[in-house]
């Protein structure tokens, strides 16, 4: 299920409160009350961080269970394993999803052996077609035998039966998130099921799910112009950073992933003492904490040291890179500049610059390129691509208007960037961006699931949920000079990669 590129969310996420630099004094107290975020924070005995926001009168409760483990943590040659693991977490436990785990276990182990033999044969210089056919027949028989003992999608069925909505998960480069929204009286159900899911997961149906993930890759990346283009931007812009590999994984890696790989990865990286559970809805913290402690607090940490995050660092880029992607579609262009990740102050400055450039009809690029010069039919910017935990990209995407050459548009964008580098942005523009950021923070708070996810994300990826509101403080303290300085440092052509999507000329 369901991996997302996770960008919009990341942006929405970096949102917060306070310095009150621009607010007038008499307004500030009242405004602060509205921006206030009363979070009950508790670390369970196994180290799981629980964040709770009470919403009296709301009949639902949203959960976001996040692990700071993402695609960039995949072992070499096993890209996509963290995402595959996310799919497997829906396959049940030793008691959910099976008629008999005792009968099932040897079948699963037998399947692993056959899958390994298929991989080994395929790795040979001259694989034997006969041997592969034989192995594939063996796998079919085992799959049939397994059908007899499996109870399909039982974990999902339990949640669905209890009114679960948004039962889903996503994997990003940085983190993996599991969500569900339930009627507010289902805390016991959640805690019980999740305890079992985290303590005794069984990655059954691994090899058929691998095909599902391959379908997902074909649908999301290979048959989708934007998916293809953003993948190319990643692998071109990054040469050392783990962000160079796609979150969903390379097809050849996906098709060779093994169930034992997923088990090892799970036991090594999914740790209560690194995880976060955010709970938002019509519940009382004092009532639910004992239930969470009794269940989720009991999930053991693996008896190994946490995975040491030690990724290669991206060296400075020393000249503009370009990549051309051919696809049967109208042109799209994405360009990315390397930048420091949030909460680095310059990362923040560039993040706010995205509002000034492309948010709303009054923003610079929408006004100049779309309405005045009619060079594009859409233009957007974002930071934090493709992740937030390591230095990332400031990305500008556009679709040229009919009959406009891509080069003309790029030249116009260069002029806009040059103007910002030379003359900066106005205090008025910054003020408007700040108001927009504050307002979207308030609207975001109205959704229990969105708020739960924001809290969990900031805790898991940035190390502190308070960044949800601290972001607002930081934005209020930002000056036009900060933005100009960051633009001058990062938005330069030597630091840029341009990815073009175009039709192959015949």
């Amino acid at each position, binding site marked *: 299920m369901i991996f997302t590129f996770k960008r919009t969310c990341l942006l929405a996420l970096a949102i917060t409160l306070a310095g009150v630099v621009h607010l007038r004094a008499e307004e500030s107290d009242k405004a602060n009350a509205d921006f206030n975020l009363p979070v009950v924070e508790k670390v369970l005995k196994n180290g799981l961080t629980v964040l709770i926001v009470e919403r009296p009168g709301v*009949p639902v409760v949203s959960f976001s269970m996040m692990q700071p483990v993402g695609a960039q943590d995949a072992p070499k040659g096993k890209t996509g394993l963290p995402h595959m693991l996310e799919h497997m977490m829906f396959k049940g436990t030793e008691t959910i999803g099976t008629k008999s785990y005792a009968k099932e276990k040897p079948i699963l182990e037998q399947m692993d052996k056959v899958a390994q033999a298929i991989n080994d044969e395929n790795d040979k210089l001259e694989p034997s077609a006969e041997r592969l056919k034989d192995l594939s027949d063996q796998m079919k028989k085992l799959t049939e035998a397994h059908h007899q003992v499996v109870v*399909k999608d039982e974990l999902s069925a339990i949640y669905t039966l209890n009114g679960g909505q948004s039962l889903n998960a996503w994997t990003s480069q940085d983190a993996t998130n599991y969500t569900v929204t339930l009627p507010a009286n289902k805390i016991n159900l959640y805690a019980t099921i999740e305890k079992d899911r985290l303590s005794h997961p069984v990655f059954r149906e691994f090899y058929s799910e691998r095909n599902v993930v391959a379908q997902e890759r074909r649908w999301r990346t290979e048959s989708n112009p934007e998916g293809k283009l953003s993948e190319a931007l990643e692998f071109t812009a990054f040469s050392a950073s783990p962000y160079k590999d796609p979150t969903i994984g390379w097809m050849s890696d996906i098709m060779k992933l093994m169930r034992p790989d997923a088990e090892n990865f799970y036991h090594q990286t999914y740790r209560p003492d690194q995880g976060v559970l955010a709970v938002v809805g019509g519940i009382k913290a004092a009532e639910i904490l004992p239930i969470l402690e009794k269940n989720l607090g009991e999930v053991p940490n693996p008896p190994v040291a946490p995975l040491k995050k030690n990724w290669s660092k991206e060296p400075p880029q020393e000249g503009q890179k370009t990549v051309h992607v051919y696809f049967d579609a109208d042109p799209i262009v994405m360009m990315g500049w390397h930048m420091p990740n949030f909460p680095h102050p310059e990362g923040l400055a560039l993040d706010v610059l995205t509002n000034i450039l492309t948010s709303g*009809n009054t923003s610079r690029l929408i006004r100049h390129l779309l309405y005045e010069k009619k060079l594009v*039919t859409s233009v957007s910017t974002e930071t934090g691509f493709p992740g937030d935990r390591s230095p990332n990209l400031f990305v500008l995407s556009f679709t040229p208007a009919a009959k406009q050459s891509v080069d003309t548009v790029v030249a116009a964008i260069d002029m806009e960037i040059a103007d910002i580098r030379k003359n900066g942005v106005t205090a008025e523009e910054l003020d408007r961006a700040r108001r927009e950021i504050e307002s979207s923070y308030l609207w975001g708070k109205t959704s229990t699931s969105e708020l739960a996810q924001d809290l969990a994300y900031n805790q898991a990826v940035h190390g502190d949920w308070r960044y949800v509101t601290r972001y607002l403080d930081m934005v209020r303290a930002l000056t036009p000079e900060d933005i100009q300085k960051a633009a001058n440092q990062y938005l330069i052509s030597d630091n840029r990669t341009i990815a073009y999507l175009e039709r192959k000329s015949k």
Partner: protein
Amino acid sequence: MKTLTLKVVMAVLLFGLGSSGLLAKPPVVAETAPLDIQVPQFDTKTLSNGMKVIFLKSDEMPLVSVKLIVPGGYILDPDNQEGLVALMNSTLRNGGAGALSPEAFDEALENKAASMGASADVESFSAEFKCLSKDVADILPLFADMLRRPQFDTKRFETNKADSLDEINRLEDTPDSLSRVILNRALFGQSPYGRWANPKSVTSIQRNDVVSFYKEHLGPTGSVLEVTGKVDEEKLLAQLESLLGDWPAQKKLPEYADAKPMGPTIYFYPKNVSQVFIRYGLLGFKRHDPNDFSLSVANYILGGSGFTSRLMHQIRSDRGLAYFVDSVMIPYNVRGIFEVIGGTRPDSVKEYLSVMFQVLNEYAKTGPTESELKQAQKSIVEEFAYSFESPFTAAARNSSLVFNHYPDDYLQTYRDNIKAVTQQQATDSMQTILAQKDWVLVVAGPESLEKELEAFGTVHKMSSIFEPLN
């Protein structure tokens, strides 16, 4: 309300246990008391021109959302000017209003971090804004200006027209969007419900066409305005009366007959992609159909419930043939859409279609099992809480019900109506949908599929999504 228990879950878990000697203990979940969901108190008022205003007050956040729904929508697109409705909406919002130029209008909104939009659906227009509570009295006049005194600025009109054309040209870029267009066109045939904007029709639209269309079709009759959030209701109502109370009635809408699909036919669009997109469509049901609850429950089981649905089980979980497969039912004022949507790799299209038809045929014959029905009813009843996640979600659900003339107690009786559906009703109602002979199948994928598809029916090969269908 009837007590909802976890018995069914427990039974399933015990079944898992009973058949083996396991070491691990299954999770046991205590029963929960039924959740008492209070449908919020909506306060309905009427302006002097008859327009309904529904208030839902909530002081939790300093925010206000205002949304107007007007009868009409894409079905009103004039012949040979398909795309006019969409263009009217974008220029209504972007083209300036009252005394303000487009740029000044945008600034007035964005300086206050207010968002405003105008859009359309198949059978309605809508316009909305969101702002901070303290700004609502300033934003409301802008909203009224947009609705009543739009400028449709010529330059903005031209830009929006170019954007529309670009958007239409890009429809053929992904198998998802191109197959959506073909399915709608083929399923609704010559009916206005099957109209779709094309480059020629949009090119022919002039600013004057938009202005006269706007004058005829936007107005208070049958319209519903929803106001949600932290507001002074009395003050706001007075302001609404003065801004919109004398908005004159718009032209009466025509009545439409049910569509006649252009099937049974397979519409094949060759596209060199590694994931084939497949849509299977039939006419669905009409709003207020006496079987609407039965059909909703029956479709939930077939393909509307995600992982637990029959289609998902058979196609994804059992065979890994797709990343997603859903069935959706959308009612209109005429018979709407029933659609099965999925995708698979080129070499498994045949298997995907065989399994899909097998599931549909079996379901048409025997309908849901008693246990599927019970589980679906319990799920849907429990999911009801979700509509009330925030006052804004509750108001949105309510205003759409009021707009579409559902009874006043619809939300109050919803759960009982879902629970009252019988196995026979679910089976019979679904059978009437699935047994229709003039189905439409749309496949977008590599050229080589054409031959394979012939095994499933007559193939109509297309080279453009806009070409005539017969």
